[in-house]
C-alpha cells in the first residue's frame, strides 16, 4: 500500500482524540472534532468525550441532533453534550464503555448499557458504543479534512487505533472489530503508553537520542480521567545505535483523576453540611466540577493558600441560593497528594477488597485508591517478568537484582499529570524507591493529545519504513487449557494444565506451529477450550505445558472452533490438528487449527467470558 496519510485514533475511556500525519507534507496535526454541543448546536473541540446519551423520544424536538455528515442524526448522542446533559440524567448516559471490553464477567456484545438502567429504549452493547465513538471520529476526521480541501480516501491511509497496554487479546480483538464495523477497515493496534513515547520522541526531535542512554529504563506512567496504565521501556545499545524494547505492561486499573475530584467533593460536601448547607445531587455534581477547577488553579499557582468554591442554586434564584465554601491547600494536599500519591515504600502493594464471597458485577473499580501502591506493584511484577527470561534479564542488567524493577526515567501522560506538584511527588517517590537517586523526567507535552499524535507518528513510521520503532510484540503470553484426565475424586477438582501457544514478545508478522501436541477434533461439533494469559511469564516457550493454569495464569476467555464437514472430511470424523499461531502485521493475534496431514486450517474464535 502506498499510504498518503496516517490517522492516529486515541479511543480513550473518558476522552478520545484524533491526529493525522500527512505523508505528502510530512506534517502531523491534531484534528478538531465536530460534535453536538447542544440541541441544534454544533462546534469543534480538540477531544471527543467518550460519552453516549440515549435520549427519550419526546425529550428534544425532532432533528435537533443533525450532524454535518448525517442529516438524520443518530439514535444516540455522542460527545460533550452527551456527557454534560447525561450527568443530570444518569439513567440514559453511557460512560467508560471501553472498560467493559476487558470486563471478566459480562459479554461485551450484550446490550447492557447504560448499566443498571430502566430505560425503555433499546440498550447498547459496550462493543456497539465503541463502534459509535469510532464512527463519529472517522466521520469527523473526513469532514474536517474535506473542509480544508483534503479529500482522503480511508483506504489510502495507515490507520492506528490505540488500546491500553493492559488489554488482553480478547479486548484487543474486540477493539479491532469495532473499528472494522465503524468502517475503518483493518486497523493497526498500538499500546497507549508506547504511543505517548512516540509522541515524546517526535516532540524532542533529533535530541531525543541524547535524552536517553543505553541502560535507561523508562516508566511510561499514564493516569487519565478514569484509568491508569503503565509500561516499562528499556533502552539498549545495539551495534552503536539506540534500541527500545517494551519489557512489561501493567494490569487494567480503574483509577484516575475523576476519583481525585470526587474525593475532594466529598470532603467539601461534609464541610458544607457541617455548616448547615446540605446539597442535592445536582449541586453535588456542580461541586465536583468546582472542586476540579479549584484543584487545577491551586496546583498551577503554588502561592494560593485557598480557592473559593461556589455552588449555584438549582433554581433561578442565584443570589439567594448559591452556597460557598473554600478549598484550602492543606485539604487539597492531604486528599490528592497524600491520599492518591502517598509516600509508600516499594514493598507496599494495593489492598484487595474481596471480603464477601460474591462480588457485585459491574466495572471492577480499583479498591485501593493509592496510585503509588499500584505503581510499586507494577514494578514488582515487571521484575518478576524480566527475571523469567534470560533475554530480558540481560537487557536490564544489574537493575534486575533488586526488589522491584526501578526505572531511571519517567514519561508522564494523562490529564492528572498536568499538575506540577503531582509530578514532583511522583519523582520524589520514584527516587525514594531508587535508593535516593534521581529519576529523570522526560518532558512530555499535551497530556490529553499525545496518544493520538503518537499513534499518527507510529503509523507514519510503519507506512514509510523510516523512523524509530519500539520493539514490542505480544505483551502477554497465551495458553490453551488442557483438561486433566484423571479419575474423579470427591471434593477434589483436578487442576487445569495449560499449553503455551503464544510466547510473550512474539513479533508482528510471524507465525508458529505448536509441535508435539495434537488435538483430535470431531467435525460438525463445536469444541471449546479455556484460554489463559500472563503478563509476567516472559520465559515460557511455545509448546511448554504448565501444571496449574488457574494458579499461575489469568483467565482470559474461551476459544471456540467448529470444523465443518467437507469433501474428504465427512461429519463425525475425528480430525487430527495442531495449533498454528499468527500475529498479523497489524498486531492482531490469530489462532488456527491446522490439519496434521494437509495444509488445510480452521480459525479459532475468541469468545468473551461470561460467568
Amino acid at each position, binding site marked *: 500500500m502506498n499510504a498518503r496519510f496516517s490517522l492516529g485514533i486515541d479511543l480513550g475511556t473518558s476522552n478520545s482524540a484524533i491526529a493525522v500525519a500527512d505523508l505528502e507534507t510530512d506534517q502531523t496535526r491534531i484534528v478538531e472534532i465536530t460534535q453536538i*454541543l*447542544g440541541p441544534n448546536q454544533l*462546534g469543534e473541540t480538540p477531544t471527543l468525550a467518550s460519552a453516549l446519551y440515549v435520549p427519550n423520544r419526546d425529550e428534544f424536538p425532532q432533528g435537533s441532533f*443533525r450532524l454535518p455528515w448525517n442529516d438524520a442524526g443518530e439514535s444516540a448522542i455522542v460527545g460533550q453534550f452527551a456527557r454534560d446533559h447525561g450527568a443530570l440524567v444518569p439513567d440514559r448516559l453511557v460512560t467508560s464503555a471501553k472498560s467493559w471490553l476487558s470486563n471478566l464477567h459480562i459479554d461485551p456484545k450484550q446490550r447492557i448499557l447504560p448499566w443498571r438502567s430502566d430505560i425503555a429504549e433499546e440498550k447498547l452493547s459496550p462493543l456497539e458504543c465503541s463502534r459509535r465513538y469510532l464512527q463519529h471520529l472517522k466521520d469527523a476526521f473526513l469532514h474536517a479534512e474535506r473542509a480544508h480541501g483534503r479529500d482522503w480516501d480511508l483506504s489510502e491511509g495507515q490507520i492506528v487505533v490505540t488500546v491500553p497496554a493492559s488489554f488482553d487479546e480478547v479486548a484487543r480483538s474486540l477493539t479491532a472489530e469495532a473499528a472494522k464495523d465503524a468502517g475503518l477497515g483493518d486497523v493497526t493496534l498500538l499500546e497507549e503508553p508506547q504511543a505517548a513515547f512516540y509522541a515524546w520522541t517526535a516532540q524532542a526531535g533529533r535530541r531525543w537520542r541524547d535524552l536517553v542512554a543505553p541502560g535507561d529504563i523508562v516508566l511510561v506512567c499514564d493516569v487519565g480521567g478514569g484509568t491508569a496504565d503503565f509500561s516499562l521501556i528499556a533502552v539498549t545499545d545495539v551495534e552503536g545505535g539506540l534500541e527500545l524494547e517494551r519489557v512489561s505492561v501493567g494490569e487494567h486499573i480503574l483509577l484516575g483523576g475523576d476519583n481525585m475530584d470526587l474525593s475532594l467533593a466529598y470532603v467539601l460536601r461534609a464541610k458544607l453540611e457541617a455548616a448547615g448547607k446540605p446539597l442535592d445531587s445536582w449541586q453535588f455534581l456542580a461541586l465536583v466540577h468546582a472542586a476540579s477547577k479549584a484543584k487545577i488553579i491551586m496546583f498551577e499557582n503554588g502561592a494560593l493558600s485557598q480557592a473559593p468554591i*461556589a455552588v*449555584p442554586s438549582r433554581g433561578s434564584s442565584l*443570589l439567594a441560593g*448559591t452556597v460557598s465554601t473554600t478549598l484550602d491547600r492543606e485539604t487539597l494536599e492531604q486528599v490528592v497528594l497524600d491520599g492518591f500519591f502517598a509516600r509508600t515504600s516499594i514493598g507496599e502493594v494495593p489492598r484487595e477488597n474481596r471480603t464477601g464471597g460474591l462480588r457485585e458485577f459491574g466495572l471492577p473499580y480499583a479498591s485501593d485508591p493509592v496510585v503509588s501502591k499500584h505503581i510499586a506493584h507494577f514494578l514488582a511484577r515487571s521484575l518478576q517478568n524480566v527475571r523469567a527470561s534470560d533475554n530480558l534479564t540481560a537487557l536490564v542488567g544489574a537493575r534486575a537484582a533488586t526488589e522491584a524493577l526501578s526505572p531511571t526515567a519517567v514519561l508522564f501522560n494523562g490529564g492528572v499529570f498536568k499538575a506540577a506538584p503531582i509530578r514532583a511527588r511522583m519523582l520524589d517517590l520514584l527516587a525514594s524507591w531508587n535508593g535516593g537517586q534521581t529519576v529523570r523526567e522526560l518532558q512530555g507535552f499535551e497530556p490529553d493529545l499525545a496518544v493520538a499524535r503518537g499513534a499518527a507518528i507510529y503509523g507514519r513510521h510503519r507506512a514509510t519504513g523510516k523512523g524509530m520503532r519500539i520493539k514490542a510484540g505480544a505483551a502477554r503470553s497465551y495458553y490453551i487449557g488442557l483438561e486433566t484426565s484423571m479419575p474423579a475424586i470427591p471434593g477434589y477438582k483436578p487442576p487445569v494444565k495449560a499449553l503455551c501457544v503464544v510466547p510473550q514478545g512474539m513479533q508482528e508478522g510471524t507465525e508458529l506451529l505448536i509441535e508435539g501436541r495434537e488435538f483430535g477434533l470431531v467435525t460438525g461439533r463445536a469444541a471449546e477450550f479455556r484460554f489463559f494469559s500472563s503478563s509476567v511469564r516472559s520465559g515460557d516457550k511455545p509448546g511448554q505445558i504448565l501444571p496449574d493454569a488457574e494458579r499461575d495464569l489469568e483467565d482470559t476467555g474461551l476459544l471456540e472452533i467448529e470444523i465443518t464437514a467437507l469433501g474428504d472430511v465427512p461429519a463425525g470424523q475425528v480430525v487430527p490438528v495442531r495449533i498454528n499461531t499468527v500475529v498479523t502485521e497489524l498486531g492482531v493475534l490469530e489462532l488456527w487449527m491446522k490439519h496434521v496431514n494437509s495444509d488445510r486450517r480452521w480459525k479459532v474464535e475468541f469468545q468473551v467470558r461470561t460467568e
Partner: protein
Amino acid sequence: MTPAGYVSTTVEIRYCSRVRRRRCASKGTTASMRAMRAVSIIATLLLLAANAFALLPVANAFQPYLSGGALALGLIVLVTIVAGRGPKGDTGRVAAEAALPAPVPTQASQAAVEVVSFLAVLQERGRLVDFLMDDINSHDDAQVGAAARVVHAGCKAALQEHFRICPVREEREGSTVQVAAGYPADEYRLLGRISGAAPFSGVLVHHGWKTDAVRLPRIVRSSTDRLPAIAPAEVELK
C-alpha cells in the same frame, strides 16, 4: 466605566469571512452587513461582560454592584437590539448600526437565533441571565459575591472557549503611551485635549480589549420560527 467597549475591526473581518464561506457564498455585501450586525451585538454583550469582570477584585465591596450594573446594561443593549424597537438614541452608535432593518426577515431571525443561542451559553455555563434577572437589592454583598463567582467562572470559561481576547495595548494602565500615525481608529478613544495630527502621546487610562478569533457554536436551524429558549424550564421526573 465605558459603556460600549471596543469593537475591533479584525473581529468583524474574520467573522464575516467565516460566515460568508458558510452560508452567504453568493450574497455579497448585504449578507456581510447582516453578519457584522450579528457580531456587533455579540461583541457588545461580550465586551461589556469582559470589561465588567476585569474590574472585579473581590476586596472592593462595591464591585458586585458595579459589575452587576455593567452586565445589566449589556443585557439592555442586547434586548433593545434584538427587539429592534428600543430607544436607539440611548444605546449609542454600535446599537444604532446593528439595528439597521434587515431586508430579508428569515435571515434577520437567524442572527437573532445566534445571539439568543450565545446568551444561552452564558446562562448555561455562568448563569448570567439568572444573575441579572434576580433582585440584587434584597441580598447582601456576601451573597452577591458568592453568586458573582459562579457567573465569573462560567462566563469566563465560555468567553475563552469562543473568543481569543487580549488587551489592545499591552502597557500598564497609567503609563504614557504613543498612539502611532495611521492607528486603527476603532481601537482607540482619545480623551482630553485632542489637537494636531497623530502620533499622539498620552496616559493609558484603559488598555482596551479586542479579539482576533471568534469560534461560536454553529446553529443548525430548527424548523420552528420562534426564537430558542435562553434556558429551558427544568422538570425533574421521579
